[in-house]
C-alpha cells in the first residue's frame, strides 16, 4: 500500500513558539489517522500544514506523493478540509456557496445540487447560511469539503454540533465508507479508535505516541 501521507521530523512554529516538533508518521492510502491531544497540542496546526494552508518550517512532508511546501500546487484540489470554521459565506445561500466552490474546483454545478440533497439541505438551498442552524452549517461545510471528490480528507471534530441522525447522514461522505485517506482530529477517544488504522498523540506539539491500533490501550490511558 502506497503512503498517502508521510511526515518525517515535521516542525512548525508561530513566531518563536513551537507548535509542532519532530512529528513523524505515515498513513497508507485509504487509511485513517486519528490524532489525539489536549487543546493547544498542535492538532489543528497539523491539519493546516497538510492542507497547504501553513508552511512546514522543518522536516519532510509528503501528501499524495507531493512534497510540501514546494509542490503544494499538486496537492490543492486533492484534499478536503473540514475544520472548526465552515469556510462559507454567511450572506450567500447554501447553494450559492457550493456553486462558488464548484466553480473554483472546476466541478459541474450539478454536483452542488446532488450534495445538497445528500446532506438533506435541498429545501434550505435558497436560504442564506447565516439563517441555518449550527448543525445545518456543519452539514453544508461537509458537502463543501467533498465537493471535488478529494483523495485525502482532513477532519477536525467533524461531528461537532451534529445530532446522531445528521452524523449518520454524513458517513458516506466523510466516514470510513467514503474510502478516502482521512486524518481525523477528535476528543472522542472511543470513536477515534474505532475509525483509526493509525493513531498519533500530541502533547505541546511533540508526538507523545504514534503507532497502529495496538496503541489503543495507551491512547485510552492518556486521553480518555
Amino acid at each position, binding site marked *: 500500500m502506497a503512503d498517502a501521507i508521510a511526515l518525517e521530523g515535521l516542525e512548525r512554529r508561530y513566531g518563536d513558539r513551537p507548535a509542532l516538533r519532530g512529528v513523524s508518521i505515515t498513513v497508507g492510502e485509504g487509511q485513517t489517522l486519528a490524532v489525539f491531544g489536549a487543546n493547544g497540542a498542535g492538532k489543528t496546526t497539523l491539519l493546516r500544514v497538510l492542507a497547504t494552508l501553513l508552511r512546514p518550517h522543518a522536516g519532510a512532508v509528503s501528501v499524495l506523493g507531493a512534497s510540501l511546501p514546494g509542490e503544494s500546487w499538486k496537492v490543492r484540489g486533492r484534499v478536503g*478540509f473540514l475544520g472548526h470554521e465552515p469556510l462559507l459565506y*454567511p450572506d450567500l445561500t447554501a447553494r450559492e456557496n457550493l456553486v462558488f466552490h464548484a466553480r*473554483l474546483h472546476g466541478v459541474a454545478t450539478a454536483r452542488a445540487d446532488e450534495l445538497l440533497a445528500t446532506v438533506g439541505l435541498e429545501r434550505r438551498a435558497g436560504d442564506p447560511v447565516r439563517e441555518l442552524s449550527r448543525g445545518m452549517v456543519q452539514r453544508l461545510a461537509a458537502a463543501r469539503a467533498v465537493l471535488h471528490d478529494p483523495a485525502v480528507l482532513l477532519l477536525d471534530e467533524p461531528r461537532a454540533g451534529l445530532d446522531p441522525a445528521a452524523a449518520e447522514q454524513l458517513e458516506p461522505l466523510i466516514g470510513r465508507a467514503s474510502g478516502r485517506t482521512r486524518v481525523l482530529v477528535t476528543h472522542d477517544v472511543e470513536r477515534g479508535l474505532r475509525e483509526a488504522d493509525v493513531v498519533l498523540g500530541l502533547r505541546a506539539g511533540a508526538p507523545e505516541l504514534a503507532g497502529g491500533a495496538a496503541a489503543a490501550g495507551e491512547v485510552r490511558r492518556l486521553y480518555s
Partner: protein
Amino acid sequence: MIRPALAILRKDLRLELRTRESVPAMALFSVTVFVLFHFGLHRDEVAGAMASGVLWVTLLLATVLGVNRLFAGEREGRALDGILLAPIDRTAVYLAKASGLFLYLVLLELIAVPAFAILLLGPGIGGAFPELIPILLLADVGLAGVGALVSGLAAESRARDVVVPLLLLPLLVPVLIAAARATEPLLTSHAGPHQLAKWLGFMGVYDTVFLLLAVAVFDYLLED
C-alpha cells in the same frame, strides 16, 4: 486564471449587492466630506487647485474605506481558506479583488462627482466633466490595483484598520499628484493650455508598474 477570477468577482458583487457595505459607505463618506468642506471653507464655490485637491483627497480617503472592506467577506468564517484550498492560481484572487474595487470606485464617482459639483463648484465649470472621465478611469485603475494589493497584504492582520491607510496612502501619492494636476485646469473658469496628456501618461505608467508588481508578488502575500 480568468474563470476563477470571474467566479470570485461574481461572488463579491453578489455579496455587495446583498449587504451594501462598501459602495454606500464610500459614497456617503464622500458626500459628507463635501458638505463639511462647503461649510468649513466658508464659501459657496471653489475652483482650480483647491477644487481639484478637495475632490481627489476625498476620493482617496473613500478608497481607504473600500480597501478595508475588500477582504471582509473572506475573513468571516475563514472563507479565504476555502479559496486557498482550490487548485487555482492565486493571482486570480488579486484580479478579482482589483476588478471589484475598480467597479466600486466607478459607482462611487457616479454619485460623488455630481455631489461635488453641486456642493462646491461654480456654475461655469460643469462642462469640464467629459474630460474628467479619462482622468477618473486611469486613476481608478491605480487606486484599485494598489488597493487590492494592500488589502491582500493586510487581510490576515489584526491591525488592518491601521495598516491599510498607513501603507496605502503613501503608495497613492503619485496618483493623487497626477490626478489633481490633470484635473486642476478643468476646474478653472478661464484655463490656459494644460498638460492633460502628460499626466494621463504618468498615470498609465504608474498603473502598469503597480499591476505588474502586484501580479508578481500577490501569490506570496497569501502565503502564511
